């Protein structure tokens, strides 16, 4: 096993508390990444990240080519969006993305001729050679600019613009780039397939990221339920300074605070970011996209999406253009089975159920999980028996039962005393509760309803 060679990592390879939900990754783990046939139409939302929305740069009925910028980012914390197919634009229209936000999107109708499709597209995005030496010929500024122009955001779901993280900041020097390959959500295998099939761009991208932000160490953290990925990454990283750390599988290891704790043994201060402890965390998909943006000058137009669950006829990992609908991906995976109960954007722990098949895939869509009635069956809610299991499960070391009760009764002073805002909404508490109390749901609601000071203008 290729373990960290030169990179000093002092993590304990795990974090406190957390849970072991059923992994169910076997459904799609061995499904080789397939390319979705070019859809007839895509709708590209102008806001797929944390930050300011883009402004449309195209007019209706304008011809656009794959990779052309169609939404430009005017603010610093923002990311442009690009045409994911070649075709003709239409009037911007409103779409809903899975987290419930409504926003403008630019529809593109596919042209008959696509310069890149099928195998050629896959090769263009993940194939070919990915150098691991001579990367310092790219200046840090050039890397950051290429990443910005490519519209890169965190592909793990949070969607924070990547260029903002990579920019050097003398107040908070970065010493380590941590590539997050934990993929701790049950069912999802998109990152896993990426590490197995295309470890090259992951390693190159990680090294480029480190060069950009001035980090000396590069560490890729993978959970030990993915031995094949650890192996392929190890081979790809041979001869480089990139270390691979094998973490003990546990949910929510992929959470930024938990990964940094487990892999590096550093504790991110409450309300802080990895950069507060000298770390930049990027997802494996993001790392690969960094390599592609810098080395090939290609923007983020496609991503790997796992379409899985016992409610899906043929679980798959699909390379899909941004803006294609969930419905088309579901159909590509054989459609829904009888008994399908919930369509989830993302994984079953932190994903959102979607109310419509028309929602577009965004940069942060890591998977579509379809659960059956049987999967989601839950016992009736009973009273809290104060068993403390939620306390033992909470990775943030909170008292979820107390927080949920405070939310339910709108006792905001108690919610604050018990640190409601430290909750990362991982759902461990609700998962374990023997009384089936919707703990995280209540806490989330409480956080949203709690009266807070208005931001000073």
């Amino acid at each position, binding site marked *: 096993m290729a373990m960290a060679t030169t990179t000093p990592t002092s993590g304990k390879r795990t974090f406190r508390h957390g849970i072991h939900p059923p992994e169910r990754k076997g459904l799609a783990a061995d499904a080789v990444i397939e390319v979705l046939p070019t859809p007839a139409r895509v709708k590209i939302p102008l806001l797929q990240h944390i930050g300011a929305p883009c402004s449309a740069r195209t007019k209706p009925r304008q011809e656009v080519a794959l990779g052309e910028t169609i939404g430009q980012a005017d603010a610093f914390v923002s990311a442009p969006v690009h045409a994911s197919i070649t075709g003709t634009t239409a009037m911007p229209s409103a779409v809903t993305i899975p987290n419930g936000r409504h926003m403008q999107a630019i529809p593109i109708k596919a042209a008959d001729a696509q310069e890149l499709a099928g195998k050629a597209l896959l090769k263009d995005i993940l194939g070919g050679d990915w150098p691991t030496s001579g990367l310092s010929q790219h200046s840090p500024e050039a890397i950051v600019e290429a990443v910005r122009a490519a519209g890169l955001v965190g592909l793990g779901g949070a969607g924070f613009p990547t260029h903002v993280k990579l920019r050097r900041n003398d107040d908070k020097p970065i010493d380590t780039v941590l590539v997050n390959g934990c993929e701790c959500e049950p069912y999802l295998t998109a990152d896993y397939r990426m590490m197995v099939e295309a470890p090259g761009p992951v390693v190159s991208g990680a090294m480029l990221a480190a060069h950009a932000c001035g980090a000396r160490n590069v560490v890729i953290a993978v959970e030990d339920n993915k031995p094949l990925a650890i192996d392929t990454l190890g081979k790809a990283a041979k001869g480089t300074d990139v270390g691979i750390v094998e973490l003990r599988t546990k949910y929510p290891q992929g959470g930024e605070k938990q990964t940094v704790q487990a892999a590096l043994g550093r504790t991110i201060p409450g309300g802080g970011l990895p950069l507060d402890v000298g770390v930049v965390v990027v997802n494996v998909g993001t790392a690969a996209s960094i390599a592609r943006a810098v080395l090939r000058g290609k923007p983020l137009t496609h991503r790997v999406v796992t379409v899985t669950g016992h409610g899906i006829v043929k679980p798959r990992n699909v390379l899909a253009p941004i803006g294609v609908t969930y*419905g088309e991906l579901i159909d590509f995976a054989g459609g829904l089975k009888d008994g399908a109960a919930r369509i989830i954007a993302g994984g079953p722990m932190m994903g*959102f159920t979607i*109310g419509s098949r028309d929602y577009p895939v965004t940069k942060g869509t890591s998977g579509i999980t379809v659960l059956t009635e049987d999967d989601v069956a839950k*016992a009736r809610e*009973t*009273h809290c028996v*104060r068993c*403390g299991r939620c306390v033992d499960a909470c990775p943030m070391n909170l008292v979820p039962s107390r927080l949920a009760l405070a939310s339910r009764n709108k006792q905001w002073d108690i919610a604050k005393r018990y640190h409601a805002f430290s909750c990362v909404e991982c759902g461990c508490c609700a998962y*374990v509760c023997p009384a089936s109390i919707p703990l*995280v749901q209540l806490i989330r609601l409480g956080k949203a309803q709690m009266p807070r000071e208005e931001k000073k203008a």
Partner: protein
Amino acid sequence: MAENTNTPESDTQAAAPQTHVAPGPHLSDRKLSTRRMMVDVIIGLLPVTVAAVIMFRRYALLQLAVAIGGCLAAEALFACMRKRRPTLGDCSAIVTGMILALSLPWNTPVYVGLIAAFIAIGIGKMVFGGVGYNLFNPAMVGRAFVMLAFAGAVGAPAYVEAGDVGELRDKMPWLESLGAMPAQYAEAPDGGADTVSAATPMTAKKMKDAGEEGGFLTKFKNLAVGNTIGSLGEVSAIACLLGGLYLCLRRTASWEIPAGAIGAVVILGGIGNLMDPSSGWTVLDDLAGGALLFGAFFIVTDPVTSPLTPKGKLIFGVLFGALVMLLRGYSNYPEGVMFAVLMVNAIAPLLNRWTVPKPLGGPAPIPVK
């Protein structure tokens, strides 16, 4: 939280299965349920129950039947009165009944057992709003009530008076062969074997400490195995350990509580030993004698009436152990488990307040809107 089937946009092309939206997480650990926890406690109580039945045979079975039946009937009755769905299915009434029965003497009159059961469920649990809301351990509330109201029938004297040695021999002739007659487990009684009373080990020790006739110390071997007179569940230390360890391994009982309790007893009992090394009563006897282990593993670990946080649980256990030692040593009662349970139950909410854990990385500042 209500699930709602909403379709913000046209959903005409949706495939046949009707899907719905609901907040995550979408999976839950179905191995865990309130009922499963209660069943665990019942399993954990089995070794103790078996030991009691071996010792007291039909008398033990009678007490168990009365207390469990009484608790179930009371639960159904009070649920009906409050116009709620009866919560018999969660098995918590069975647990209360078992613990109550195991805390009673073998010769408790049936009506006393029934009253204890109704008080346990009615006053101990239902007036607070049912399982999850009660402040005190229901079984101990019922036990305390009859202990005060029917002191003659279930209090410490009951063992001595209601069952003198002759009566014990009459009613339970098998005790002799189990080596469980007081004369068989008394270690060097002051006035010779003839003066031995039918007292339980804890009462006999108290009597001896007070210089009363009939007092004696019990052999450790008997305390461990359980062939002594006493409340049904307190006799066998080994059975308590067996069931208790099962509960801790299943994490139905939090190990912090018995660990804290045993730790406190070891330290306080150890100090006692050092101060009076010739007493013949050691830390081990403190642990194995009376209801300490039964209480530490099965009663104070009741999640509802114990703190939520690991630190709180440890402090709670330590307080329990210390109180038991204090009551044993200085109160008028030979044993202090029941009152110690009720006292620590009362401070559990405070312990929760005092032991709010520090979030990972320290509390996050409250964000502005």
